C-alpha cells in the first residue's frame, strides 16, 4: 500500500511539474498575470508530493519490505537502521528520486527567496526548473520506478553494497546532488535571461548567491567522496581519476569558472554571453555525469546496474535540454552584447584567462574520461585512461591559473599596470621563492616537484597578505581592528577560498612527495618502523558486527619508545553478500596520518599488513573545507542580507537595491574574484 501511495504521489508531482514547466513560461511571454502567479504554489505543491514519495520509499526500506524490488536488491534485514535509510538513495532508482526531490527543494527555495525579483523572471526561472523536473520524474516513472514490486516477495534482501555502509556514504551523495542540482538554478536564470533578453548586472547579482551555494555543496560533496575513498577503500589514495569522480569534478571546474565570471558580469557588465554559456555548461555537465553513471557507457566503481533503455532515455533528455539551451544561446546570445571593455592587462583579462584555463582543464578531463568510449566507438580497441594522463595535463594547466590567482585580486579593474603590479608583488614573490626552496629541507629531502608545488601555495598565501595589507592601508583612519572590520565579507570570502586552495596544494604536494608505504609480513610480536614510529603487531582476532564477521588486528604504535595508541584495522566479510571489505585504522594528526590496513592472513597468525605514513594528507580535505567556508561567507555578505531584510519591507525593495548599487563602499567592497 505504502509503495503504491509513493508511486501515486510521484505521478501527481509529474502533473504539477508539467504545469510548472508550461503555464508560467507562456504566461510570462503573453503577459497573463494569473498564469505567472501559478509558478510559486505549483512549485510548493510539487515539493510536498515528492517529499511524500521519498518518505514512502524510506518507509519501505526502514520496514524491510522485500516485496519492493528496490528494497530487495539494496537492503537486508540485518542492515543497521541508519544504512537502511541511506539505502533509500543507494540505488539508481532511489538516488534519482533524491535528485528530483532536491531539485524541487531548490525550486521551493527560489520561490521563497525571490520576492524582490520581477514576477515574470521568477515565472521563467521556475518554469525552466519545472521542465527539468518533468524529464527526471518521467525517467523515474518510465524506466526506473523505485516502487516496482517484486512478487512473490523475496525472503531476504541482497544487502546494500558494503562499500556504501559507511557514515561518509550516508551524506556524500546528498551533498553532491545538492551541488549538481543547485547548478540548475544558475542554468534556469541563464535560460530565463536568454528568453527575456534582459541580461544586466541585476541578473548576475541574483544568480550569484545561488551559484555560490551550489558550488559550496559540490565542493563539500567531492571532498567527502575523496575522504571516503581514502579511509574506506583501504589503499590510501584520495583521488583516482575514476570516470565518476571526474563526472563530479567537471561541473566543479566549470562552476568555479562561473562563480568568477558572474562576479565580473555583476561588477563590470562584461563577459555576459560567456557567463550564460558557463551556466549552461555547468548544469549540462551535471546532467552528463548522471548519464555517464547510469547508462553503462563507461566502467567505474560507482556504476549503477545498467539498462540500455535508461541510457536511451537519458541521452534523449540530454539532447533536448542541452541541445535546446545551446540553440537558444546561439540565437539570443549575439544580441546580448559584450558589455564593458577592458585592457589586455586588467583584472578582467586575468579572470578571463583563468576562466579559459579552467575550461581547458575541464575539456581535457572530459576528453580523458570519454577517450575509452571514443576509441571503442571507432573500433580502435578497448583501453583505459589512468592518472598519468590526467596529472600530465592537469598540473601544467593549473600552474598559470594559480599564478594568476595571486595576481588577479591585486590588479585594477579595466586597466592595470604590469610594472606597478610587479613592484607591489616583488616581496611576495621573493618570500615565496625562498620559502619554497628551503621548506623541503625541513621535511628531510629536497625534491624539485615539492619545491615547485610549495612555491605555488606560498605565492597564493603571500599575495593574500599583500592584498590585505594594501587594503587596510587604503581604508582610512582607525586602528587595525577597525580597519579589519571595515572590509566586506565577500572580500574575506575570496581570500579564504583562495587560502583553501593553497592549503590543498600543500597537502597534495607533501603527501605525494614524502609519503611512505610498506607491505610487510607481520608475525605476532614483530615490529615495523616508519617515519619515526614503530608498529607492533599483536595478532588478529575474530569479532562480529551487526551484519558482518571480521578479523580485527591489534597493532601498538610506539613513538620514541612510548606507546601512543592502539590501531585496530579490520578485514570484514559481510553476511548477505559475502563481500570482503578492508577497514583500515587511521591515526589522524595535524602534520601526518598513520594508516594501517590488513592484507591477507598467513599461517601461524601472521598477516600481510600495509602501513602508510602520510604527511599533511588531511590538509587536502581541510583546504576543501576552507574553500567551502569561503563560499558560505560570500553568500552571507551584507548585500544579500540587505535583500533578506528588504523582503519584509516590500515597498522599500527598489529603493534599497538602488542604495546598494549606488553606495560605493558596498558595491566595490566585494572583490570576490
Amino acid at each position, binding site marked *: 500500500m505504502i509503495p503504491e501511495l509513493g508511486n501515486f504521489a510521484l505521478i501527481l508531482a509529474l502533473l504539477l511539474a508539467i504545469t510548472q514547466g508550461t503555464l508560467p513560461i507562456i504566461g510570462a511571454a503573453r503577459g497573463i498575470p494569473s498564469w505567472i502567479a501559478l509558478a510559486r504554489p505549483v512549485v510548493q505543491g510539487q515539493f510536498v508530493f515528492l517529499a511524500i514519495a521519498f518518505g514512502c520509499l524510506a518507509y519501505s526500506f526502514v520496514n524491510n519490505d522485500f516485496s519492493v524490488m528496490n528494497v530487495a536488491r539494496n537492503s537486508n534485514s540485518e542492515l543497521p537502521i541508519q544504512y537502511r535509510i541511506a539505502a533509500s538513495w543507494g540505488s539508481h532508482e532511489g538516488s534519482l528520486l533524491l535528485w528530483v526531490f532536491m531539485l524541487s527543494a531548490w525550486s521551493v527555495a527560489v520561490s521563497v527567496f525571490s520576492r524582490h525579483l520581477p514576477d515574470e523572471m521568477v515565472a521563467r526561472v521556475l518554469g525552466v526548473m519545472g521542465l527539468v523536473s518533468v524529464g527526471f520524474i518521467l525517467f523515474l516513472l518510465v524506466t526506473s520506478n523505485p516502487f516496482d514490486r517484486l512478487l512473490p516477495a523475496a525472503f531476504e534482501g541482497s544487502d546494500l553494497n558494503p562499500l556504501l555502509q559507511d557514515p561518509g556514504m550516508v551524506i556524500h551523495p546528498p551533498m553532491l546532488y545538492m551541488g549538481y542540482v543547485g547548478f540548475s538554478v544558475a542554468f534556469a536564470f541563464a535560460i530565463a535571461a536568454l528568453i527575456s533578453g534582459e541580461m544586466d548586472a541585476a541578473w548576475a547579482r541574483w544568480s550569484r548567491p545561488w551559484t555560490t551555494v551550489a558550488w559550496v555543496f559540490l565542493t563539500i560533496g567531492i571532498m567527502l567522496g575523496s575522504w571516503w575513498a581514502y579511509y574506506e577503500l583501504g589503499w590510501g589514495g584520495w583521488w583516482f581519476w575514476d570516470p565518476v569522480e571526474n563526472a563530479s569534478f567537471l561541473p566543479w571546474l566549470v562552476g568555479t569558472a562561473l562563480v568568477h565570471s558572474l562576479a565580473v558580469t555583476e561588477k563590470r557588465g562584461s563577459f555576459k554571453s560567456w557567463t550564460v554559456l558557463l551556466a549552461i555548461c555547468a548544469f549540462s555537465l551535471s546532467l552528463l555525469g548522471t548519464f555517464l553513471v547510469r*547508462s553503462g557507457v563507461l566502467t567505474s566503481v560507482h556504476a549503477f546496474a545498467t539498462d540500455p533503455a535508461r541510457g536511451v532515455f537519458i541521452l534523449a533528455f540530454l539532447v533536448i535540454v542541452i541541445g535546446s539551451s545551446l540553440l537558444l544561446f546561439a540565437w539570443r546570445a549575439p544580441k546580448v552584447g559584450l558589455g564593458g571593455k577592458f585592457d589586455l592587462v586588467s583584472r578582467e583579462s586575468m579572470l578571463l584567462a583563468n576562466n579559459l584555463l579552467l575550461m581547458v582543464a575541464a575539456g581535457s578531463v572530459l576528453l580523458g574520461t570519454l577517450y575509452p*568510449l571514443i576509441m571503442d566507438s571507432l573500433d580502435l580497441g578497448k583501453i583505459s585512461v589512468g592518472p598519468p594522463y590526467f596529472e600530465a595535463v592537469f598540473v601544467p594547466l593549473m600552474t598559470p591559473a594559480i599564478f594568476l590567482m595571486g595576481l588577479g585580486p591585486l590588479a585594477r579593474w579595466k586597466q592595470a599596470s604590469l610594472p606597478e603590479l610587479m613592484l607591489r608583488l616583488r616581496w611576495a614573490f621573493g618570500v615565496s621563492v625562498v620559502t619554497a626552496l628551503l621548506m623541503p629541507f625541513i621535511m628531510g629531502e629536497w625534491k624539485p616537484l615539492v619545491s615547485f608545488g610549495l612555491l605555488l601555495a606560498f605565492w597564493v598565501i603571500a599575495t593574500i597578505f599583500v592584498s590585505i595589507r594594501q587594503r587596510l592601508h587604503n581604508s582610512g583612519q582607525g586602528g587595525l581592528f577597525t580597519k579589519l572590520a571595515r572590509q566586506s565579507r565577500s572580500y574575506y570570502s575570496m581570500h579564504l577560498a583562495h587560502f583553501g586552495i593553497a592549503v590543498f596544494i600543500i597537502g597534495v604536494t607533501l603527501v605525494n612527495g614524502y609519503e611512505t608505504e610498506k607491505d610487510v609480513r607481520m608475525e605476532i610480536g614483530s615490529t615495523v618502523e616508519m617515519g619515526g614510529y614503530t608498529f607492533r603487531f599483536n595478532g588478529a582476532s575474530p569479532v562480529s558486527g551487526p551484519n558482518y564477521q571480521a578479523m580485527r588486528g591489534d597493532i601498538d604504535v610506539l613513538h620514541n619508545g612510548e606507546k601512543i595508541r592502539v590501531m585496530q584495522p579490520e578485514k570484514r566479510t559481510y553476511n548477505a553478500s559475502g563481500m570482503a571489505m578492508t577497514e583500515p585504522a587511521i591515526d589522524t594528526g595535524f602534520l601526518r596520518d598513520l594508516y594501517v590496513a590488513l592484507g591477507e592472513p598467513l599461517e601461524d597468525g601472521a598477516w600481510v599488513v600495509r602501513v602508510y605514513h602520510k604527511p599533511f594528507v588531511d590538509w587536502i580535505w581541510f583546504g576543501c573545507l576552507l574553500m567551502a567556508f569561503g563560499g558560505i561567507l560570500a553568500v552571507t555578505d551584507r548585500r544579500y542580507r540587505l535583500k533578506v531584510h528588504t523582503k519584509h519591507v516590500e515597498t522599500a525593495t527598489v529603493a534599497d537595491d538602488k542604495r546598494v548599487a549606488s553606495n560605493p563602499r558596498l558595491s566595490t567592497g566585494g572583490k570576490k574574484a
Partner: protein
Amino acid sequence: MTRFLLPLAAFIVLVGFLAVGLNLKPREVPSPLIGKPAPVFQSQLLHEPERMLASQDNLGKVWLLNVWASWCVSCREEHPLLVELAKSGIVPIYGLNYKDKRDLALQWLSQYGDPYTVSVVDPEGRIGIDYGVYGVPETYVIDKNGVIRHKQIGPVTIESLEKKILPLIKELQG
C-alpha cells in the same frame, strides 16, 4: 552568429559518440578463458552434500555452467528461461551455487523450479575466482573437450539464447 554555434556543434559530436557508446558494452571484457580449457573443479552437490561432482565427469558432452545465488535478484529474470531450456532437454545445465547458504539456496530452487542437472556449491567463491566470475549470474558454454566456448555475462535473455547460445550448442553437438 557562427561562433555562438560552436558549443552546439561540439555537443552534437559528443552526443554522436555517446549514442554509439550506448550500444557498446564496456563491462563485457572479453574473457581470456574463451577457447581455453575450463578450470577443473571438484565440489559438493547442493542437494546431496555427501556426493561430489568433478568437472572432468562432463567430458564428452556439451554443457552449460550457470553461476547463480539465492541473493541474486537478476537470477530470477533468467530463471524461467533456464527452466524451459532444461525441460527441452537440448543441453544439460549445471549450476554453480555461488557464495550462498545451503538452506536459502534449496528454498529458492523449490520456489522457482530447479533447471539444474545438479548444482555444486561454491560457498567461498573459490571456483568463481578460477572462472573469473565478477557478477552473478554468468553462464558458460563448455564443449565436449572441456573447453569454454562462450561466456554470457548477466542474465540469459531470449535474444542471447536464440542468437548465440542455442546455435553454438547445436554446432558443438553436431
